[in-house]
C-alpha cells in the first residue's frame, strides 16, 4: 500500500494503513460525536439560558434557571428517585443471582430455552409490558380481584398509582437486564471451586457467599449498572402506574418540556440527572480498573513466589 505505517509488534493482525482505520471508523464516530456528544454538551449550555415565552430558548446567559433548582420540591423528588432506583436494583439482584445460577447449571437444551424466555421480554415493547401491569393492578383487574377474593386485601386499598406499584414494575422491567450478565458470569464460573469448598467443610451458604459471589463479582457489577442507571432515568413507569406521590426526576423533566414548555428548566434537571448517572458509572470503571490492577499484582506476587 502507499503509506505503510510502522506497526507496533503487539497488534494482532497487521493493519495496512492509518488511513484505512480512519475511513472505517469515521462514519460511526462522526455520527455519535454530532448526535450524541454534542447534544449532551448542549444540555449543560442551555441550563444557563433563559426561557423564551414561546416555549423556545431565549438569548443571552443567566443563572436564574439554575437558581430555580432550589425549589423546595426537588430534594424530595431527587431522594425518591435514588431510593426507588436503589431498592428496585437490590430486588433485581436478589432474584437475578439465583435465576442466573440456575440457568447456567441446567442441561444445554433446557438452558437455550430458559435463556430465550429471559430474552423475549427484553425484545417486547416496553410500553406494552408496563401497560400489562396497569391492566392487572387496576381496581377491576386480576390481581385486585384475587387478593380481595382471598381476603388478603380490603377492596378499598388501591394497588395502582402507589410507589409500591412503581417499584414492582421497575423490578419487572429491570430483571431481564440483571439476569443476562449474571448468567454469563455464572456460565464461565468454575463450579469445581464450589465442590472443593464443600469438600473442605464449607456449608452451602458459605460456599455461595465466599466462593461463588466473589467469583462472579464483575458480572454483579455489570448487572448493578444496567439496572440502577436506567432506573434513575425512569419516566414512563411512574407516569403510568405511579401517582403524584411517586413522581421521579424523569417526570419533572417531561413536565417542564411538555406542560410548562420551559426548555432551559428541563435542561437544568437533565444536566442534574446526567451528573447523577455519571457518578456510579465512573466509580464502576475505576473499581474495575483497580481490581484489574490488584489481580495483576496478585498474579505477579504468585509468580515471584
Amino acid at each position, binding site marked *: 500500500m502507499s503509506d505503510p505505517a510502522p506497526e507496533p509488534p503487539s*497488534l494482532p493482525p497487521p493493519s495496512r494503513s492509518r488511513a484505512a482505520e480512519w475511513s472505517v471508523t469515521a462514519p460511526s464516530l462522526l455520527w455519535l460525536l454530532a448526535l450524541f456528544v454534542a447534544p449532551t454538551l448542549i444540555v449543560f449550555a442551555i441550563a444557563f439560558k433563559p426561557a423564551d415565552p414561546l416555549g423556545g430558548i431565549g438569548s443571552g446567559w443567566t443563572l436564574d434557571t439554575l437558581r430555580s433548582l432550589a425549589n423546595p420540591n426537588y430534594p424530595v423528588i431527587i431522594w425518591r428517585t435514588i431510593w426507588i432506583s436503589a431498592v428496585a436494583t437490590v430486588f433485581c439482584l436478589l432474584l437475578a443471582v439465583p*435465576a442466573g445460577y440456575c*440457568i447456567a447449571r441446567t442441561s444445554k437444551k433446557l438452558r437455550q430455552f430458559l435463556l430465550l424466555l429471559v430474552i423475549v421480554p427484553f425484545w417486547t415493547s416496553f410500553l406494552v409490558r408496563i401497560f400489562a401491569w396497569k391492566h392487572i393492578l387496576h381496581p377491576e383487574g386480576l390481581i385486585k380481584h384475587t387478593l380481595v377474593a382471598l381476603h388478603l386485601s380490603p377492596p378499598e386499598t388501591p394497588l395502582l398509582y402507589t410507589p409500591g406499584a412503581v417499584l414492582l414494575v421497575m423490578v419487572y422491567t429491570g430483571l431481564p437486564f440483571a439476569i443476562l450478565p449474571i448468567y454469563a458470569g455464572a456460565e464461565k464460573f468454575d463450579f469445581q471451586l464450589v465442590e472443593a469448598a464443600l469438600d473442605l467443610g464449607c456449608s452451602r451458604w458459605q460456599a455461595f457467599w465466599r466462593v461463588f459471589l466473589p467469583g462472579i463479582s464483575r458480572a454483579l457489577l455489570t448487572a448493578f449498572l444496567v439496572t440502577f442507571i436506567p432506573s434513575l432515568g425512569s419516566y414512563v413507569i411512574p407516569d403510568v402506574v405511579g401517582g403524584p406521590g411517586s413522581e421521579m426526576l424523569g417526570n419533572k423533566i417531561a413536565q417542564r418540556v411538555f406542560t410548562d414548555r420551559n426548555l432551559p428548566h428541563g435542561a437544568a434537571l437533565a444536566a442534574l440527572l446526567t451528573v447523577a448517572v455519571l457518578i456510579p458509572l465512573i466509580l464502576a470503571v475505576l473499581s474495575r480498573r483497580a481490581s484489574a490492577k490488584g489481580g495483576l499484582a496478585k498474579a505477579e506476587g504468585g509468580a515471584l513466589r
Partner: protein
Amino acid sequence: MSARHSRSPAIITATVLLFFYLPILVLVLDSFNASRFAGQWGGWSLHWYARLFQEPAIWNALRNTLIVAFSATAASAVLGTAAAFALHRWRSRLQKVHYALVYTPLVIPEILMGMSLLLFFVALHVQLGLVTIFLAHVTFCISYVAMVVLARLQDFDFAVIEAAQDLGANHWITLRRVLLPMLAPGIAAGSLLAFTLSIDDFVITFFVAGKGSTTLPVLVYSMIKHGATPLINALSTILLAVTFVVVSITQRLTEE
C-alpha cells in the same frame, strides 16, 4: 451429590419466569374478551381487533413507524457494522474513544438521550418530525448493531481477508465477496434487533417527534393516558405477535 444442591434457585427461577409472562398472558387473553371490563369474561371475540382496524389514526401511525424503522435500520446496519469492524480490527487509542462512544448510549437512560436531542434540534432550529425521529433512532441503533456484529466477529479469522488480497482481490471485492457474506448472519441479527427497537421506542421518539408525526408507541401512550379502552389490549397483542416472529427469526440466524 444432589443433597448438596439447594432446590431454591430452581423455584425462584420458575417464579421469575411466571412473573415475566403472567401480565402479558392476561393482556393477550383480555384482547379477545367480548366484555369491555377486564374483571369479567364475556366470551371470545375479535370485536376489539375489528374496531382497531377502523381507526384511521392507527394506519397513519403504522405508516410513520414503518418509514422510520426501515430507514433507521438500514442506516444503522451500515454504520454499526463499520463500527464493529473498526473496533475489532484495530487496537489504537482512537478505537478506545470510539468504543466508549459506541458503548455509552447503551447504558444512559433513554430520557437523557431524548431530552438532549430535543434541545439540540431546537437550538439548531431543525423542524421536528419524521426526520428528527430517524436521526434519533439511528443514534441508539448503531450501538446495538455494533455490539451484535462485534460478538460475531470474535470468531472471525482475518487470515481469510489476507488470503483474498494475496489472490488479487481488491478492497471492494474482498468486502463484497468475503467479508459481508461471512458476517451476514451477525448483520442480519443486529438489524432485526435495531428494527424491533425502532418499532418499540417510545421515550426518545416522544421527545423528538413534534406534532403530526405520531408513531405506534406514541399512539399507544396517548391511548393509555386518555382512557384505557380494550383497543390497547388488541394493539398490544399485535405488537407482541410481531416481536415474537422477529425474535424467532433472529434465534434461527444466531443458532449455528
